[in-house]
Structures are given as structure tokens and as C-alpha cells.
């Protein structure tokens, strides 16, 4: 790792001040992605601003039918505490491995927006709202390509508000070495329609599969997407799977997610 100063502010405003005053400063959530990135010298921040000591950034509460989860909540905390939204708790409980889940955070995952991360699929399929120190961002306006988001410099995710669907399920085809999703599909059924979000597959990051959403909104059963397919041209291809393989997995996992959501 290159050298950096480590700073642990106790308020969001102190953290934002440091991040805004120094464009080379970077926020640190649980570090489960950022520390490996720093070890490989792929980033050279001047300062790391730990968000772990800031009050009010953790905790899970139910507000008007939605689950509001603090941005610094660990995956383990969400797995244990998001019982009001079982599909989300199950997703959190299968990220990485137990030690990673004890450090990695919801806000950190979303700010990083790895194209194979699990949380982006949950946020997009749930139509969640990303709450920052400055504003609220709808899921559909938040994700912006590979590792990209519409967060401004120095903007910190303080919480995420998840509307709780009538039924939901996340199916993850695990890439066994990294434990990221080779492909992951999150299906959420709301009173006014179904949302389907796909991670691990798209060459522009997490995306909604609108044809499947229309078909499943009409009829919520696995066979409703028979005949639908994803264009492989827009899929990621790497040594773990071809474009065609990933496109195929999207359909299979969507059906499995619908079947599981129907219980």
C-alpha cells in the first residue's frame, strides 16, 4: 500500500469536510474491497476517512412499510436484523464469508458498485432509495456503469430505505473463488408490479430486465418468462463464463427466484 493518513471522524459533517477539502481523500467503510485494492496499489488516497465511528450510521428500523438500514451496517448486522425483509437478510447472509460479513458494509458495497456485488441487485429490484448526507437518490438514478454511481465527491451514504415487497427472492450463482455473483438475479413483487434486477452479468453493471418484469407483472410464475432471453452481446465475458453462458444463467436464475418467492 502507498502511504495515507487515517482519520476517524465522529460526525458526518466532519467526514464530509475532510473529503471535500481534499479531492484525494477517500471514505472507508468496512474496507473489504478498498483494502485489497490499496494493497495492489490500484488506488493512492491521501487520506482514508473511516466512517465506523460516526453515530447514527448503523441500525435497522421499520418506517412506513419500508426498512431503513444505516449505511455503515455490516452484512452480518443486516443478515441478523433485517427479518422484516427476509429476502434481503438472506442476500446479506451469503455475501463473501462470515469474516468478510463482519466488516463489509451496505454503504461501502453500494458506493463501490462492483458489477458482481449482491447489494446493487437488491437496491435496484426493491426500488430502494439511497440516502446521503446531502439528498435522497432513487435506485434507478443511482447506479452509473461499472464501479460508477451518481454520488458526488465527498457524498456519504448514511442509509438506504428499502420498500418491503409482497414477495422477493435473490438467486446467486456463486463464482466459487471470489464468492461474488457469477450471475445474481433479484426478483421483487410489489402490489403495482414486479421488478427484476441482474448483477454479475451486464457489461455496464447492474441492470433491470424489463421484458421479464412485464411478463411477471402479468403472471407471477416461473414459466411466464418462457421464450424471453437476454441479448448476450451486452453480457460480461471472462474466464469464468462466456456471454452466452451468463445470458442463459439470467433466465434460469430468474425462474428459480420466482419459484422461491412463491415459496
Amino acid at each position, binding site marked *: *500500500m*502507498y*502511504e*495515507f*493518513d*487515517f482519520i*476517524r471522524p465522529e460526525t458526518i459533517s466532519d467526514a464530509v469536510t475532510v473529503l471535500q477539502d481534499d479531492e484525494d481523500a477517500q471514505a*472507508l467503510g468496512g*474496507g*473489504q474491497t478498498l*483494502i*485489497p485494492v*490499496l*494493497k495492489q496499489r490500484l488506488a493512492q488516497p491521501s487520506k*482514508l476517512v*473511516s466512517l*465506523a465511528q460516526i453515530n447514527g450510521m448503523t441500525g435497522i428500523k421499520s418506517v412506513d412499510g419500508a426498512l431503513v438500514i444505516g449505511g455503515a451496517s455490516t452484512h*452480518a448486522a443486516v443478515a441478523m436484523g433485517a427479518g422484516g425483509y427476509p429476502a434481503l437478510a438472506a442476500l446479506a447472509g451469503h455475501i*463473501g*464469508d*462470515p*469474516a*468478510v460479513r*463482519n*466488516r463489509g458494509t451496505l454503504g461501502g458495497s453500494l458506493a463501490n458498485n462492483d458489477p458482481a456485488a449482491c447489494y446493487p441487485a437488491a437496491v435496484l429490484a426493491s426500488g430502494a432509495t439511497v440516502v446521503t448526507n446531502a439528498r435522497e437518490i432513487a435506485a434507478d438514478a443511482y447506479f452509473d456503469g461499472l464501479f460508477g454511481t451518481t454520488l458526488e465527491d465527498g457524498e456519504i451514504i448514511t442509509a438506504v430505505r428499502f420498500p418491503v415487497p409482497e414477495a422477493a427472492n435473490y438467486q446467486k450463482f456463486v463464482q466459487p*473463488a471470489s*464468492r461474488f455473483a457469477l450471475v445474481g438475479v433479484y426478483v421483487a413483487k410489489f402490489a403495482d408490479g414486479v421488478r427484476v434486477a441482474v448483477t454479475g452479468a451486464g457489461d455496464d453493471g447492474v441492470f433491470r430486465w424489463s421484458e421479464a418484469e412485464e411478463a411477471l407483472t402479468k403472471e407471477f410464475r416461473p414459466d411466464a418468462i418462457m421464450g424471453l432471453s437476454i441479448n448476450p452481446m451486452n453480457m460480461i465475458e471472462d474466464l469464468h463464463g462466456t456471454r452466452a453462458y451468463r445470458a442463459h444463467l439470467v433466465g434460469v436464475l430468474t425462474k428459480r427466484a420466482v419459484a422461491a418467492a412463491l415459496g
Partner: protein
Amino acid sequence: MTKVAMTVNGKPVTGEVEGRTLLSSFLREGLGLTGTHVGCDTSQCGACVVHVDGVAVKSCTMLALEAEGAEVATIEGQAAPDGTLNTIQQAFQDHHGLQCGFCTPGMVMSAAALLKDNPKPTEAEIRHYLEGNLCRCTGYHNIVKAIMAASGQDVSVLAAE
């Protein structure tokens, strides 16, 4: 350099570290506690697992300064002061849960974290929990058997290695 203070295996410790000093480096090089192993340095192998404030973490993927004020437990604090192994360590010995021993500190610390939350895990639960701990010698069977035995369960039903 910045001063860092934490409690390690029940004893208050302090040291001077850089911002980039990893917790694993502080434990091994700062405190001489070389029982915590660094295998992959890419947060995959789990040889460096320690407990921070009661939960298992990969100490190669946490900065020493992030552990400021924390209670840290390492493999060195598991046996009694006279060297008597704790239940999990003894079960690893009794059931041949190690060969080269490199992964063992992380395995024992992960097993301790598992049994704290789930005192009677099934074989499947143990295998799932150990996803983040790699062993290149044993094939895992005897590790799983040792953890089941440490939890007071009958291991005669498990397949032989």
C-alpha cells in the same frame, strides 16, 4: 506514525503504526504474536482470522488503527496460561484436524466464532461457515469432525476421512 491502543488477549497494548499498517502486521511484527498467519494477503484464505470485539475478522483486511480501543483475541489467547489447550484446540489434536498447521490458527478462531453463535452446528453449517478458511492439506473432513466434537456432538456418524 500514530499511536494505537487496544486490548489483545485481555492485556492492554499500545504501539506506533502507520495509517497503512494492517492489524495482522501490528499483531505479528508490533507485538510478536506470530500465531496469526498471513497466507494469501488477499482476504481469501482465512489464516489471519482473529476476533475483534467478539466477531471473527480477517486481520489482513483491517487496518490496525481501525482496531483502536477494540478487544482483540488471537490464537495465542486460546490455550490456558499453563499451555492446556482449549476444547476446540484439543479436538483438532484428537481428530487430526491439521497436517501442516498453517491454516489452523484461523480455523480455530473461526470455529470459536461459530460455536459462540451456534453451539451445536450441523455438518453442513460448519462447512458453510468455513467458506472463508482454506486448508490445502486435510480435505476439511477432520476439521469438520474436530469442530463437531468440540461442540459435544457424536462424530462417529461422520464418514471416515
